[in-house]
């Protein structure tokens, strides 16, 4: 039990979570309050801690693949991507070009699905019930497309060291193109229903301002950082896979408030669609999986691989010892750092604003707890 740092009699604690609709998972935030004003929100983590890092250190590196999808289950493919790229970098495995294209296409589709889900969930936090069903409607198409090729709908284990599990077919290409067309038509609906909604703007504008300095101090990355006007995207700044071959922009905001973070994510969806379109247009032929030894030896030494997940920078840091079992596997998840700024961001604001801020940070709790 936390002791109050204030001596005034009117202060009290409010437990927000672990079963609160706005924490999006089993997260507890202990709020020290004065009336409806939040003085000190302190997140309490670890309710669904599974010690993925230990699991990574206790089995051959192939065995950890399914775990990667169980951290951020909303946007699992970039997690797959980071891990396979890490092992490929460490073991010097070549990846066929077509496989890299397929990875980019599926990762970006997954990112769009994640942003759609976030959009709905954020509006649900603000008390609007309808956008989440629109978001789910569109997201469902992506899940169907990905299910056809990966075999699962949420916790993908699609990428393999040296390629992907199986090739995409014409049906996938057609369905993806149809989906891109569909989503572009739906922008209007979202704009009318949400973006131009006066109540929504009033609830998101000038709330939870993240300054660039704050982003540096807390290591905030992803759309939350780009909302503050810093165009930092691992796909651009630290190019991996075949991202340099595509033409896309990194949308940024100006003030760094909730509305900017919202706008950045909405505009990012369009950029992801552009990447998918270009990748489909220039999809090279060839194999989708290279020959990889059954037992992958991880040479001594450490190695890092960073990818841009839907929520920010995802870094895998591996220390090899010459066997196929990683000696140390550290997973740096974006939401962990993004959430850590909450005590500073949520000081002296109203409870509804705290809900708005937490929604705009796009938290996925299993990713934070790992």
């Amino acid at each position: 039990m936390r002791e109050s740092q204030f001596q005034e009699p009117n202060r009290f604690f409010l437990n927000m979570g672990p079963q609160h609709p706005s924490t999006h998972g089993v997260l507890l935030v202990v709020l020290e309050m004065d009336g409806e004003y939040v003085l000190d929100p302190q997140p309490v983590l670890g309710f669904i801690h599974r010690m993925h890092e230990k699991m990574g250190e206790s089995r051959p590196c192939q065995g950890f693949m399914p775990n990667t999808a169980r951290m951020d289950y909303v946007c699992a493919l970039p997690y797959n991507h980071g891990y396979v790229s890490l092992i490929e970098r460490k073991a010097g495995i070549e990846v066929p070009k077509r496989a890299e294209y397929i990875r980019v296409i599926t990762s970006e589709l997954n990112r769009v699905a994640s942003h759609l889900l976030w959009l709905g969930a954020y509006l649900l936090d603000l008390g609007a019930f309808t956008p989440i069903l629109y978001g789910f409607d569109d997201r469902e198409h992506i899940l169907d497309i990905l299910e056809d090729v990966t075999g699962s709908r949420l916790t993908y284990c699609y990428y393999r060291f040296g390629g992907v599990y199986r090739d995409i077919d014409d049906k996938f290409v057609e369905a993806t193109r149809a989906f891109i067309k569909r989503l572009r038509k739906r922008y209007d609906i979202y704009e009318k229903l949400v973006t131009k909604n006066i109540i929504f703007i009033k609830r998101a504008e000038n709330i939870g301002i993240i300054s660039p300095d704050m982003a540096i101090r807390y290591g905030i990355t992803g759309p939350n950082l780009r909302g503050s006007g810093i165009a930092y995207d691992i796909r651009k700044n630290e190019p991996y896979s075949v991202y340099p071959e595509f033409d896309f922009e990194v949308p940024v905001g100006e003030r760094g408030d909730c509305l900017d973070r919202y706008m950045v994510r909405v505009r990012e969806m369009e950029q992801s669609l552009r990447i998918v379109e270009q990748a489909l247009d220039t999809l090279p032929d060839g194999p989708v999986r290279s020959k990889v030894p059954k037992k992958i030896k991880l040479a001594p030494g450490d190695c890092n691989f960073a990818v841009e997940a839907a929520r920010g920078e995802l870094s895998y840091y591996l220390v090899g010892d010459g066997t196929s079992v990683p000696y140390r596997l550290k997973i740096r998840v974006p939401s962990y750092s993004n959430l850590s700024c909450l005590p500073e961001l949520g000081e002296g604001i109203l409870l509804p604003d705290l809900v708005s801020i937490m929604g705009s940070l796009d938290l996925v709790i299993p990713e934070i707890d790992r």
Partner: protein
Amino acid sequence: MEIISTLPPELIRMVFAVIIIISFIFLNAIMMGYLERKIAGHVQRRPGPMEVGSHGILQLVVDGVKLVGKELLVPVNVDRTLFRLGPILSFTPVILPLLVIPFSEKLQARDLNLGLLFIVSMTSINVMAILVAGWGSNNKYSMFGAMRAVAQSIAYEIPILLSMLAVVLMANTFSLKEIVGAQQKIWFILLQPLAFIIYIISGVAETNRAPFDLPEAESELTAGFHTEYSGMGFSLFFLGEYTNMFTVASVATVLFLGGWHGPTLPYGEYLGIVWFFLKVYFLLFFMIMIRWTYPRVRFDQLLNFAWKYLVPFSLVNILITAVVIKL
């Protein structure tokens, strides 16, 4: 039979009226529940309830049976008296306003000459119920909901009264029947558009409906004042809410939309109720649509809106009305 004939006919009339109104309240809640879910479904591009009966028309009946059959859970540390009192307080006063509402020229339980004031005073008891429920629940979230409800109710009762006053000034009476009578030629919505808008906005706030559903605010306060309630306790709050909505819409119809007036029907003095209900349910439909479209406002925004915009505008409106009438 002899006993009945010895009773004053007015008493028998009232007893009948109350019985009819109570049964109507339940019917209205079932219809509203069904309408709400169906409209929400269509707004969200899904069919809504489809399983029980044709197009799910019996869904709410089944839900009602389920709610009645559920255990009344009383948490350990609550104030038992207040906790039980809350739902009853929420449900009982909602019957009374319906007694003075003229559904048609002849369908009115009792025409009070201060009918409008009677309605206002009865509907404001609802906030007591929320306060009692929130306080008695011994839960911080419920307490928040109760506090919000009180502040919200005080803030929005003023613009409601002021917008009503504008109509009263024009009709020169507080009796609802006479107000409707005064709209024989032209509905007051055309003469008092600003008052109508203010009334509808405040009415939505008064009934704690989204986007002003701060006392429940699911995503902030879990469910606010009724977090701890289950079964019938919970459903009494809902009965209260839907009946309050009906009352607000009925008063709007009486004050602004010409009550039972409409194209002439046979037995017009009775069948005017058809027009009355059409208008009421149109307003309710409008309120439901708003709920499923807008996010929730923040508490300070809600109060700012009432004190900074609605109250001054309604005061100006009254002033102008008074001056124009005097001239």
